């Protein structure tokens, strides 16, 4: 979805405040939320894609104001409300890698030129907005993995091959691009079309 979470390239957030003296969980509730989310996902409240999508569905002002673990808390509340009503108890999923055996070969190979699709799905997706409808080159071919776009909203895992795609900075940012920079993004096969 075109949401506030899709931050790549945005202006206006100022300088990066890199501190070396920070505490992992400045407030105790943040550590509890971190652990609670891990256990709740492990017990089947939601898969990781649905969890991420629950964060993306937050009102944008809350997304910015609640902080990282505040967003996790908000997502836990959303998912609990949606999925734990009445006597329902989720099934415990198998824990393990999202890599899957695929019954076909990858469509692209190392070095293939590709273009990303220009689609604006309302649901969860892992193609950042700044890389939509852009030309790149396949830089790595990974195993097929659970496809977040369908897994996030209960349409199943429908595994797709995952690629690392290299984009020249200029292709992404035009004339303002910095010289000598390449951005590599991990993208699923459906997002990509072959480029001659």
């Amino acid at each position, binding site marked *: 979805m075109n949401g506030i979470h899709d*931050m790549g390239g945005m202006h206006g957030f100022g300088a*990066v405040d890199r501190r070396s003296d920070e505490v992992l969980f400045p407030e105790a509730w943040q550590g509890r939320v971190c*652990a609670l989310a891990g256990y*709740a996902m492990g017990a089947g409240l939601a898969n990781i894609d649905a969890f991420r999508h629950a964060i993306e569905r937050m009102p944008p002002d809350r997304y910015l104001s609640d902080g990282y673990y505040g967003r996790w808390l908000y997502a836990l509340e959303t998912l609990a409300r949606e999925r734990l009503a009445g006597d329902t108890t989720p099934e415990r999923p198998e824990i393990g890698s999202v890599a899957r055996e695929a019954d076909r070969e990858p469509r692209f190979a190392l070095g293939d030129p590709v273009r990303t699709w220009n689609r604006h799905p309302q649901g969860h997706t892992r193609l950042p907005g*700044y890389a939509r409808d852009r030309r790149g080159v396949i830089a790595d071919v990974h195993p097929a993995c659970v496809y977040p776009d369908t897994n996030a909203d209960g349409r199943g895992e429908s595994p797709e091959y995952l690629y690392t795609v290299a984009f020249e900075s200029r292709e992404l940012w035009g004339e303002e691009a*910095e010289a000598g920079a390449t*951005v*590599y*993004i991990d993208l699923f096969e459906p997002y990509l079309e072959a480029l001659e």
Partner: protein
Amino acid sequence: MTADHRHGSESPAVRTEAIEALLVEKGLVQSAAVDALVERYEHDIGPLRGARVVAEAWTDPEFRARLLEDGMPAIRELGFGDNTDSHVARLVVKENTDSVHNLVVCTLCSCYPWAVLGLPPAWYKSPAYRSRAVREPRRLLAELGLDLLPDVEVRVWDSSAEVRYMVLPRRPEGTDGLGVEELTARVTRDSMIGVERL
């Protein structure tokens, strides 16, 4: 904004107690286990693992080759790569050289190599870092004290899926005689994300 009243006007601490009580009541979590996991995050899972991996790679060329080939099996040799991050499909390690500097970000959320670096620092999760790392990495790095020569190529890794990235920083000058333990102490978390040079 819609539906916000459902998330209450109470403090996050109060809301956390409420959601924990519900998850316990539903049998999804046990509070003692939550206590233990928080403890583990705070004390056991951290960038020390990554630092050890880097020191091994600096001192053992064959390990370095295996690490760059496929990160997860290599870190398992050192006893890392447990269930901290079990859904991750691959760990990819990118080596900084004279001519290439690598930088890791996640613009869409805050994906991070938990298995080797623990939980991400606050700045890594900040909108400023997530928005700027892909658009103006050189300027951002310069602001953070790392000036790259114009002929050094910057490679930014936007971890948008279940592949996680760690940077293998360059070994600092004057460390030839040091062993793995001493080298491990030299490696910083931020150098393994790519915002610091050792």
